[in-house]
């Protein structure tokens, strides 16, 4: 029988993600503002690169994971995202331009300090 699933307190989740280049697969989940939706969105920072989470789920679906049955048939998948997409709206807002005024130069750490989003640091 499957040993990997022993003592699992919560149902597992299925994730497809880029294979880490080194032995250390530790990644951080960052809460950043989605560039279009402007909502809090989770991103994965690992291997020196930023990834976004996508979610695939069909109306009915369940998993057979080896010798394990998992009710939730959805799959999360992580794909690269160019940080410029995330940062451009911040830079745009940070200029504080209005009308004919082209805006100001500001310090980087000031630009990246967003209320409620420690993830940018």
């Amino acid at each position: 029988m499957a040993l990997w699933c022993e003592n699992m307190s919560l149902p597992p989740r299925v994730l497809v993600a880029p294979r880490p280049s080194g032995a250390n697969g530790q990644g951080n989940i960052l809460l950043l503002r989605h560039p279009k939706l402007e909502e809090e969105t989770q991103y994965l920072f690992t291997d020196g690169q930023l990834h976004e989470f996508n979610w695939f789920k069909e109306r009915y679906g369940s998993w057979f994971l080896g010798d394990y049955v998992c009710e939730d048939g959805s799959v999360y998948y992580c794909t690269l995202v160019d940080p410029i997409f995330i940062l451009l709206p911040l830079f745009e807002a940070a200029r504080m331009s209005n009308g004919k005024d082209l805006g100001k130069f500001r310090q980087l750490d000031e630009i990246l300090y967003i209320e409620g989003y420690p993830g940018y640091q």
Partner: protein
Amino acid sequence: MEQATPPAAAGIDLSPAATDLGRVHLLPCGIRHNSAAAVSDYFKPRDTGVEVDGVKVEEAFFRGRNLQGATVALPDGYRGSVLEKKKNEEKDAQGMDEEASNFVSRAEFQNITYWNHDTMPSAEDPLPRCFHWLAIANAMHKPVTAEDMANMSARQNQNS
């Protein structure tokens, strides 16, 4: 160099220490159950010999229903993981952020077999189509290297 992480940071550990799962099946029905089960003893897929658009069709039965399926390999550079959400007890004890979610990879897989109930598998099925994005995202978002730039400008010079 180790990067300092804030104490409440959420994380995912995808270190390749986990078990290889062998086969992973996505079934076209809901099963209200989460636990170990003798799947490989009772769920026996077999090749039908039929091929649709280069997709090899497999056949299996679940509760007397005939399922038709196909296996999709994850694109190069990707890996599938089964994650367990870790409760962070030390943090809870200190009354700190309990929201922080930490996931650890328990097992891995390299391909997924998805099963259709009424239709033959084809390249137009939702799962293979969804996996197109994995390749597209890489093309769109991968950092451009100096080499890429050199190749590009060389090609442009040729055309002009």
